């Protein structure tokens, strides 16, 4: 089994997915090992919540498991897989926006207490190790518009090429560059406002 795994480690992402299309589960396992951290990081920066990011990453891998036959060698595997991940995140965001959010504190109007649900996301104390600056940067990214956020993350966090970003987002190259530029400007403004406060 370890020998088999070592063979798959030498294969490229595209070769692994082709092997997985031949019903070889070890190829899929290798792909999961290669992309799980990248995907969780990308989705964390996109959503701002780690648990949510892991759930979305797992959903993306499940979609990959079901629709492995859809991959064709025209594009890179990373491009195709990131497209799946972004679409999964977007659909999840749309679902959440439809829910009518209400405060649990409002459920019991007689009591003035505010009910707080413990959050598993990184608290500001956790951010202290990484720097308060990182916290505020993440807060600024979360406040960006959807169209700017994804391109900024793919370019400045994941360090993808402009062409690859254009393929993932299915946008023209010029649109990608302009959005990245405008996104950076907005991010700068937001950070200046945060630092001032």
């Amino acid at each position: 089994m370890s020998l088999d795994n070592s063979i798959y480690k030498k294969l490229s992402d595209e070769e692994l997915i082709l092997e997985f299309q031949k019903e070889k589960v070890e190829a899929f396992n290798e792909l999961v090992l290669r992309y799980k951290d990248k995907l969780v990081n990308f989705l964390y920066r996109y959503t701002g919540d780690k648990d949510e990011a892991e759930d979305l990453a797992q959903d993306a891998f499940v979609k990959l498991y079901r629709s492995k036959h859809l991959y064709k060698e025209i594009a890179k595997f990373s491009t195709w897989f990131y497209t799946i991940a972004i679409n999964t995140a977007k659909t999840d965001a749309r679902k959440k926006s439809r829910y009518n959010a209400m405060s649990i504190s409002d459920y019991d109007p007689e009591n003035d207490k505010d009910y707080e649900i413990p959050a598993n996301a990184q608290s500001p104390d956790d951010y202290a190790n990484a720097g308060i600056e990182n916290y505020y940067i993440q807060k600024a990214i979360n406040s960006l518009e959807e169209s700017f956020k994804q391109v900024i993350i793919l370019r400045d966090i994941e360090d993808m090429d402009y062409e690859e970003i254009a393929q993932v987002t299915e946008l023209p190259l010029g649109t990608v560059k302009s959005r990245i530029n405008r996104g950076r400007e907005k991010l700068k403004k937001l950070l200046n406002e945060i630092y001032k406060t």
Partner: protein
Amino acid sequence: MHEEEQHIDIREKLLKLPKVKASDDFLNALQRKINLADAELNQKKITEDVKESIWVKLFGKKRNPWLIPSLSLTIVVIFIISIYVLNSGKVSEIPTMSDFQKKETSTGKTPDDKEVLKDTKEKSTNQDITNNFKFETDKKDFKAPSVLDKKLTETPSPVTIPAPMERKVDEISRPSNSEPVKNESGKVEYKKEEKIYQDMEKNHKDESNMSKEGNTGIEEQIKKVAPKEKNDVKDAIETKGLIDKKEKMTMKKSAKSTVDSTKINQQVLEKIKEELEKTIDEK
């Protein structure tokens, strides 16, 4: 690149952000989700197979495409055949000329209107207006006489005039109230109906006597004229002439007798009607 230089500080800050890694439980959770997804797929496949109706199985995708036109054609053919069978059954109930022709060929006679009426009028009874007398229209009492007396002529003749000598007096129905009644003085009186009956008897007797006399006269003539040798042509012709005359006489007499008999019957009926009307008026 100019754009990159403008916002390089932001890019560097974003690149320096710490990388978030997946938790240790990530792979197990992923395996659970994959197993759930497989189970759901299997259930969907099973339900889809069960839900497939007969129509989908027959006419669904990738099934037999020729089934639809063939079935429709068979249905149309069955419909046409059923209509034809039903209509043929109805038509057979209505009598046609062919049926009549068949009857003719089987019996050897042409079905006349009289024969058609015979079946309906055989047992019919006609009531008089006053409902006091019932006249049986059954033809047994008033038999149409046969064509000719076979004793007189051996060869059948086409004439259908009835011969009165064959009619029997007893066949004439005697009125019910015709019994003689005694008067106060002791004389036997006959009622009017009885008188009419007796008149009819007399007429029949006279007719029979006349016919007999005519027949005997002709027979005597035949005997006188007929030669001893029967093979003589002239004699045969003469005898034939006499026989023809005889036939004519009998035909005439029979015609007369029938006319006379009908007249008598009519007279009788009229008299009876008058008497009935009188009785009703008296009442």
